[in-house]
Structure formats: structure tokens, C-alpha cells
């Protein structure tokens, strides 16, 4: 609201200086402050003559003081520069680790399903009017373990890449690195050894039970490696990605 008083050169200079000091403020906030000061001066000017202009401006105080008060709790359209975190601290890293780990686990799991298991051979011998059927159930533990070992080696190159990514990234601790890197070989070993133990304890039935048990034991290890630890890393990556 402009009145003849606010057109006074001293007043215009005062308000212009205030606008300049608040130039990087949110436009709405800047307008509210300057309008308040202008209206205050309008009110003062509606009383008096030119001599009151100096007194009114003195009572308002220096524009620097008003701007300083406005700085406290300011809102501004100036956006702080976004500092991007280092490459290995970004959210894509845990996603890549999950994908590679999942691929490795899939290879190991498929191998365990395809591993040489029980071989049943039947032979029959006839004689004297009777037929004798001999059934041999054979399980080659060594061959089974070798197969699983080959499966774990088959996860190369994904698994070493996981090791390098996780080891180079600040998103995981050293202990978490150990847990992630060891997950695939540990799961492969368990899937290989459980059936062997089951066979030695309970034959074919024992091996079947042990095979299912191995899946139950391996499930939390897999969940840890492809969900829990990467999720922690994703949270850390998001924190690092926040503007400072």
C-alpha cells in the first residue's frame, strides 16, 4: 500500500535497501516482511510532516537489523548444491549385489537338485523256477560333493564380483563382507553334506529328510545374504544420498 509518505525518497531508498538484502528469500516471505515495514511507515506518515520521516526510519532501525532477524528461520528459494556420494556408496550397489548373489544361489540350488543322488540298480536271477531280484541302492557321496563343489565354482565370475563390490563399498562393514562372501560357498557345502550325513544315518530315507533339512537350514543364510544385509546397505546409501 503506497501513500504519499512512502513515496518520500528516504523511504523509497530504505525499502529498496531492504528488498536488496532479502533478495534471495522466498518471494512470499520477502513480500510479507517488506509490506509489513511499508505499512508501518504508512501508518507513521499518515500522522506527520517530512520531519517525521527521519524519526520514523530511526524508530524502524537499520535495514541490516531487519534482514538479520529475517535470516533466523528463513525460507529461501536458494537450493543447496547436491553433493553426490561416491560411486560405490550409491543405492545401485546393493541392488547389483542382490542380483549377483541371487544368480549364484540359483546356480547352487539347481546343481543340488541335479546332483548325482541315489542310484538304484536291480538285477534278477532266475533259477529253479524262482526269480530273485536284487536291488542295490548306491549313493556316491564323493561324487555328490564334487558336483556341488563344481557348482560353487560355477558361480564364478558373479561371486568374486560380489566380493569386490562389497569389499570396496563403504555400505558394508568388514564383518558383513565376510557374511556375504561366505554365504554362497557355505550354502553349497551344506547342500552337499546334508544328504551325505542323512545317507550314512538313515539310508535313502535319511538322505531325503536331510535334503529337505538342508533347504530349511540354508533359507535363513540366503535371506541374510540377499535381503537383510543389502537392505541395510540400501538404507545407508539413502542416508548418504541426502543433500547436506
Amino acid at each position, binding site marked *: 500500500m503506497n501513500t504519499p509518505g512512502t513515496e518520500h525518497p528516504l523511504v523509497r531508498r530504505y525499502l529498496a535497501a531492504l528488498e536488496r538484502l532479502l533478495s534471495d528469500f522466498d518471494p512470499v*516471505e520477502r513480500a*510479507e516482511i517488506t509490506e*509489513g515495514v511499508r505499512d508501518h511507515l504508512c501508518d507513521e506518515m*499518515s500522522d506527520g510532516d517530512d520531519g517525521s520521516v527521519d524519526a520514523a526510519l530511526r524508530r*524502524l*532501525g537499520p535495514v541490516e537489523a*531487519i534482514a538479520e532477524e529475517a535470516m*533466523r528461520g528463513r525460507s529461501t528459494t536458494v537450493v543447496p548444491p547436491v553433493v553426490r556420494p561416491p560411486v560405490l556408496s550409491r543405492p545401485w550397489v546393493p541392488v547389483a549385489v542382490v542380483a549377483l548373489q541371487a544368480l549364484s544361489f540359483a546356480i547352487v540350488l539347481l546343481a543340488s537338485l541335479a546332483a548325482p543322488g541315489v542310484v538304484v540298480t536291480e538285477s534278477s536271477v532266475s533259477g529253479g523256477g524262482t526269480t530273485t531280484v536284487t536291488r542295490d541302492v548306491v549313493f556316491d557321496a564323493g561324487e555328490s560333493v564334487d558336483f556341488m563343489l563344481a557348482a560353487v565354482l560355477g558361480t564364478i565370475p558373479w561371486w568374486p564380483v560380489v566380493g569386490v563390490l562389497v569389499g570396496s563399498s563403504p555400505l558394508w562393514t568388514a564383518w558383513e563382507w565376510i557374511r556375504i562372501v561366505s554365504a554362497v560357498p557355505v550354502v553349497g557345502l551344506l547342500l552337499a553334506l546334508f544328504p551325505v550325513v542323512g545317507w550314512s544315518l538313515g539310508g535313502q530315507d535319511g538322505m531325503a529328510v536331510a535334503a529337505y533339512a538342508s533347504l530349511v537350514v540354508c533359507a535363513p543364510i540366503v535371506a541374510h545374504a540377499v535381503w537383510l544385509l543389502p537392505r541395510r546397505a540400501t538404507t545407508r546409501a539413502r542416508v548418504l544420498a541426502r543433500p547436506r
Partner: protein
Amino acid sequence: MVPGDDVIMTQLRRGALEYCVLSLLDQRERYGREIAAVLGADGVLLDGDGTLYPLLARMRRAGHVTTVWRESESGPPRRYYELSLTGRETLERFRIVWKVFRDAVDSAMDETPGAA
């Protein structure tokens, strides 16, 4: 370095001025120059009238006060500030806390050697 009176006064003002404004508005709605006249009367709470306006803008954004334009008998329309419900609750809370704070500071001052 020993801070000057104005530095200490500025620091103290920053903590209390908003609540003094709320207390004035608790009585009735007021316009900016009127608030400045009351608070600045003794030069303690308000150093320059102009510093009131960024504070009022902040209080309005925080929802402690609302504003309304009213015609004035002499001069242009005036923007009146009135206490919101949030502002009233804030003021009530401040009154309780202020008493505790004031008594604690007074007590600490009394226990300090050399205090008057």
C-alpha cells in the same frame, strides 16, 4: 572477550520476544505498529520496530497467529494479528516453562559469588 550489554540483550530477546507478542495478542488483536509501540516503549524487548515484521511473518507461517485486514479511521487499511489456537496453546506452555526457567536463573544468580 566480554560480551557487551547489547549482545547479551539480543540473545535474551531472541528467546522471549515471540512469546511477548503472543501475550499481547492474547488480550486482543493488534496491528504491527501498535505491537511495536507497546514492546518498544522501554527499548528493552524491541531494539528497532522493523525487526518485529520478520518475527510476525515467522509466527504466521508457524500457525501461531492469523491476520486480517481492517479499515482504519485514519489512513490506509491495517493488517491485524490475532492469536490462533496453536498460538494460545504455545503461550500457555511458555507461561509454565518461563516461570520454572526464570526461577532457576534467579536461583543460580543468587548462588553465584558476587551476585547482588
